[in-house]
C-alpha cells in the first residue's frame, strides 16, 4: 500500500512532534543545562556555569540526603509493599467473592483513585489529624491514639498513597489473574497443593510479567507524588515528610535557587529514566 511520498505521509506527525519537542524535550534539555548553573530566582541578571557544583553540594547537604532517604521509605512502604501487595490481595479475593461484594469493593477502591489529587489529600488529612477519624476509631477500639501527622508523618503520607494508588495494581492484577487458565489451578488443587503453595508455585510465576511492569509503574508514579504530600503536611513537620519533589520545590522557590533545585530535578529524572528503561526491557523480553 503506497500512498504518497514518505515525507508527505509523515506530515500528520508534525503537530504532535512540535508540541513534544517544544514543551517536553525542550524543558528536559533546559533542565540539563541549568542544573549546571547557579541560576537564581531574583536579583541576578546573569547566571554562570558552575559545573558539578550543584551536584557536589547536594551530596554534602544533609537536607538532600534526608529527602533521598524519605523518598526511599515512601516508595518502599507505599508502592513496593503497600499498593503492590494490597492490589494483588484485592484482585485475588475478588476472584472468589460474590458479585455484589466485588462490585462494591471495586467501586470504593477505584473512586479513591479517580478523585482529584488535592481532594484525596484533604480526605486523608482529615483522616489522620489529631481530632480525625483514625483516632476516633482507635478510641473506639480502646487502642492508644497518636497525633499521626506530627509523630509519624512519612507513615501517614505513605498510607495516603496506598489508599489512592492501590486501584491501579488491583486492575492490573485482576487482568493478569483472569489470564491464568482455570485448568492449571484446578489441577494443582486436585494434586493437593494448598493455597499458599499454589500462590507461590503457580500464580506468582505465571503473572511475573505483570508484577514486574506493575512495580515499575507504581514506583514511577510514587516518585512524582507532590500534591498529596503538599496538602497533607507541606513536607513537615520540619522536613520529616519532605520527599525529593518537595525538596526540589523548596530549594527552587522558598530558597530561590533554581539551579540547585533543577540539579535535584535532574537526579530525580535520571532515577525515573532508569526505571523507565528497565520497564521497556521487561516489556521487550516478554513480548
Amino acid at each position, binding site marked *: 500500500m503506497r500512498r504518497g511520498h514518505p515525507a508527505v505521509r*509523515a*506530515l500528520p506527525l508534525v*503537530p504532535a512532534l512540535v508540541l513534544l519537542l517544544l514543551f517536553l524535550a525542550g524543558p*528536559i534539555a533546559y533542565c540539563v543545562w541549568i542544573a549546571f548553573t547557579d541560576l537564581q530566582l531574583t536579583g541576578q541578571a546573569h547566571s554562570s556555569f558552575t559545573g558539578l557544583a550543584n551536584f557536589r553540594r547536594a551530596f554534602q547537604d544533609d537536607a538532600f540526603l534526608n529527602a533521598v532517604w524519605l523518598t526511599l521509605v515512601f516508595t518502599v512502604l507505599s508502592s513496593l509493599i503497600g499498593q503492590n501487595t494490597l492490589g494483588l490481595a484485592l484482585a485475588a479475593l475478588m476472584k472468589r467473592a460474590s458479585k455484589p461484594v466485588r462490585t462494591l469493593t471495586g467501586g470504593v477502591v477505584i473512586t479513591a483513585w479517580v478523585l482529584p489529587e488535592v481532594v484525596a489529600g484533604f480526605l486523608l488529612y482529615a483522616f489522620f489529624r489529631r481530632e480525625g477519624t483514625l483516632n476516633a476509631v482507635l478510641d473506639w477500639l480502646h487502642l492508644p491514639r497518636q497525633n499521626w501527622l506530627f509523630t509519624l508523618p512519612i507513615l501517614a503520607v505513605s498510607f495516603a498513597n496506598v489508599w489512592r494508588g492501590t486501584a491501579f495494581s488491583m486492575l492490573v492484577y485482576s487482568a493478569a489473574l483472569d489470564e491464568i487458565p482455570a485448568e492449571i489451578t484446578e489441577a494443582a488443587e486436585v494434586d493437593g497443593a494448598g493455597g499458599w503453595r499454589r500462590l507461590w508455585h503457580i500464580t506468582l510465576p505465571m503473572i511475573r510479567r505483570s508484577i514486574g511492569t506493575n512495580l515499575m509503574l507504581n514506583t514511577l508514579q510514587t516518585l512524582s507524588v507532590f500534591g498529596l504530600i503538599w496538602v497533607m503536611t507541606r513536607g513537615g513537620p520540619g522536613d520529616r515528610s519532605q520527599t525529593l519533589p518537595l525538596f526540589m520545590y523548596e530549594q527552587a522557590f522558598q530558597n530561590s535557587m533554581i539551579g540547585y533545585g533543577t540539579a535535584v530535578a*535532574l537526579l530525580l529524572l535520571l532515577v*525515573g529514566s532508569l526505571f523507565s528503561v528497565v520497564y521497556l526491557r521487561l516489556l521487550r523480553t516478554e513480548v
Partner: protein
Amino acid sequence: MPRQSASRRRVSHRHASRRRPSRRRATRRLAADLALLALAAAFALPLAWVLLSAVDPGAGLRVRIPDGLTLDNFRAVLTPGITYTPLLNSLLLCGSGTALTVGCAALAAYPLSRFRSRLNRPFLLTILFATSLPITAIMVPVYALFVRVNLIDTLQGTVFFFAASQLPFAIWLMKNFMDSVPRELEEAAWTDGASAAQSLVRIVLPLMGPGLAVVTVFSFVMMWGNFFVPFMLLLSPDRMPASVSVNDFFGNRGMVAYGQLAAFSVLYSTPVILLYVLVARRLGGGFALGGAVKG
C-alpha cells in the same frame, strides 16, 4: 473480541466444575466476601467523611452521622469566587488541553498505525519511555523556561504543557485503538478516490469511537485532577483552576470551614467520577492501560 469469548468459555467451564466441591467453595466465598468488606470499609472511611461533612451543619474533621441535613455548605460555596470561576477555569484549561491532546494524538497515530516505516519502532519506544517519566521532576525547569519566554501565568502556556505531558500516553493508546480498525474498509475508500485525510476523518475515527472516548476522558480526568502543573505555571488568582484554588480553604481564610471544604470537594470531584463511570466498561478489567502494560 476473541478475548471476550475466551473468558466466556472459562466462565462456563468454571460453572461446570462448581457443582462438585460446592460447600468448600461457598465457605471460601464467604471468607473472601468478609475480607473484602473489611478492606472496603477501610477505604470508604475517608470517602464517608467528605460525603457526610458536606451535608452536616456542624462538620468537623471526623466521620460522624450529621445532627441534621443541610444544604447550607453547598449554598455557601456556590459563589463566583469560590466555585464558579475556578471550575470554569478548570473546564477551559482541561477542555482546551484535552482537545489539543486528542487532535494531535489522532493525527500522529494515523501514520504510525497505517504505514510501515523504519522509524516507527524507535519512535514508539521513545513515546513509551516518555510515558513513564516523572513529569513532576521537570516542573522547576519548565517554570524557569516559561519565565524566559513569557509564557508564565498564561492560559495557552499551561494548555500547551498539559497537552505535551499527556501526549505520549495518548498517542500510544490511540495507536493501539487504531490498529484494531480493519484496513480493508479504508482501502475501499482509497480506490474510490478518497485521500488519507478523508479516510481518517470519515472512516477510521468514527469506527474507533469508543477508543477515542477513552483517550478523551482519560486525558481530561488526568488534567482535571492535576495540581502541580497549574500550581507552578499560573500565578493570578483569577486564572486558578479548582485543583489549586481549593487550597485557599486552608491558607488564606483562617478558620477552616470543613463543611464547605467538603461541599466544594464533592462539587469538584463529581464530574470526573461521572466521566470515569461513563467509560469504565472500556477502561475496567484489563484497563486501556493494559495497552501500556502489555506493550
